[in-house]
C-alpha cells in the first residue's frame, strides 16, 4: 500500500538464530531431497536438470507431482495445473503473513517470499499467534531449508536414496509431525477449535470428492470463514492494526 511506513527492523543475529532453529528439521529435508533426486534421475532427468529444478522450484510435493507426469513428452497445461494446485497453499500462507509483510518495502517483501515453504511459514505463523513478529525465520529458516533441499537432491542424484527404507524409522512423518507441533503451539480458544473442526471436515470432504490437491485450500478457507464471522471478543490486537491507517 502506498504511504505506509516500513517499520520492520531485520536483525542479522535473529536471522542466524532462526537458521539454527530450523537446522534439525532441515536434516530430515536432506533425506526427502535425496528421495526426490533419485526419483528424478529414474524418470530420465539429468543430474544438473534435477538439481536446477530443486534450486528454482523449491517445493517438494509439486516436484514429485510433476515427475508423475514425466515422459518422452510432457503436457504443459496439466503439469501447470498440478504444480499450481499443490502449491496453492502458498497463496494462503503469503496472505496470512501480510500484516507483517506490509511493514517491509515491496522489493524485500517479495524477496522474502522466494524462501517461503511449509516449515518456516509454520514457525512464523505460530510466533505471530503468540504475539511475536518474526519474519527472520522466513529468511534464516528458509535459507537452511533451501540448502538442505538442494544438497539432499544432489546427494540423491549422485548416490541414490540415503536409506533403504526411511519409513521404517518414521522419517516420512517428520514434516507432518513438525507442522502438528506448530499448530498445537499456537493460541487455542473455542473459536480456533471450531475452525479446526470445520477445516478438518472440509479438507477430508474435498480430499474425498473434489479433484486431487485441492483439500488444503478448501479446508483452510473453510476454517478461515469461522474467523471471518466469529471475532475474538476482546479485539486488542485489532485496535493496534486499525491505528496503523
Amino acid at each position, binding site marked *: 500500500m502506498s504511504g505506509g511506513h516500513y517499520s520492520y527492523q531485520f536483525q542479522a543475529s535473529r536471522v542466524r538464530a532462526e537458521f539454527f532453529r530450523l537446522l534439525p528439521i532441515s536434516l530430515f529435508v536432506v533425506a526427502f531431497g535425496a528421495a526426490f533426486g533419485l526419483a528424478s534421475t529414474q524418470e530420465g532427468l539429468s543430474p544438473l536438470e534435477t538439481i536446477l529444478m530443486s534450486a528454482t522450484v523449491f517445493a517438494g510435493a509439486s516436484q514429485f507431482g510433476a515427475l508423475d507426469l514425466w515422459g518422452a513428452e510432457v503436457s504443459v497445461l496439466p503439469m501447470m495445473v498440478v504444480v499450481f494446485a499443490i502449491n496453492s497453499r502458498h497463496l494462503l500462507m503469503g496472505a496470512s503473513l*501480510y500484516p507483517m509483510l506490509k511493514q517491509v518495502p515491496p522489493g524485500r517483501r517479495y524477496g522474502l517470499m522466494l524462501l517461503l515453504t511449509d516449515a518456516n511459514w509454520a514457525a512464523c505463523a505460530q510466533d505471530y499467534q503468540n504475539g511475536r513478529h518474526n519474519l527472520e525465520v522466513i529468511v534464516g529458516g528458509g535459507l537452511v531449508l533451501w540448502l538442505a533441499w538442494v544438497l539432499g537432491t544432489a546427494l540423491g542424484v549422485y548416490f541414490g536414496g540415503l536409506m533403504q527404507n526411511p519409513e521404517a524409522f518414521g522419517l516420512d512423518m517428520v514434516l507432518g509431525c513438525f507442522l502438528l507441533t506448530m499448530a498445537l503451539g499456537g493460541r487455542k480458544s473455542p473459536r480456533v477449535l471450531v475452525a479446526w473442526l470445520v477445516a478438518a471436515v472440509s479438507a477430508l470432504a474435498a480430499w474425498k470428492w473434489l479433484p486431487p490437491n485441492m483439500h488444503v485450500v478448501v479446508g483452510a478457507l*473453510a*476454517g478461515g470463514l469461522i474467523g*471471518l464471522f466469529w471475532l475474538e471478543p476482546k479485539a486488542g490486537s485489532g485496535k493496534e492494526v486499525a491505528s496503523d491507517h
Partner: protein
Amino acid sequence: MTIETTSAGVLALIAIMTVVTLVTRFGGVFLMSFVRINPRVESFINTMASSVLIAIIVPMAVDGDLGALAALVATAVTMLATRKPLPSITVGLLAAALVRYLG
C-alpha cells in the same frame, strides 16, 4: 500443448514450474495489498493460517497407515504435555517406527 523432454525442453518445463510456483508464493501477498486490514480480515487470516496446518495434517492421518496415525497422536500428546516441538517430533517418529516394526 506438449513439450518434448529434450535438454531445451526440460529447461523450459523447469522454467514453467518455477514461474507457476512463484505466482503462488507472490500471489497471496500481492492480492492482500489491495485489502484493507480490519479486525475482521485479521481474524479471517489468523484462523485460516492454523487451518492450513490442520487441512494438511488430517488427510495425512486418515490416508496413512497405522504408523502415520501413531506418529501424529504421539506427537500431539507430547506437545500438549511439554510444549516442546523437538522432543514431541522425536516421540512421534519413535511411535511410527515401533508400530511399523511390530506390524
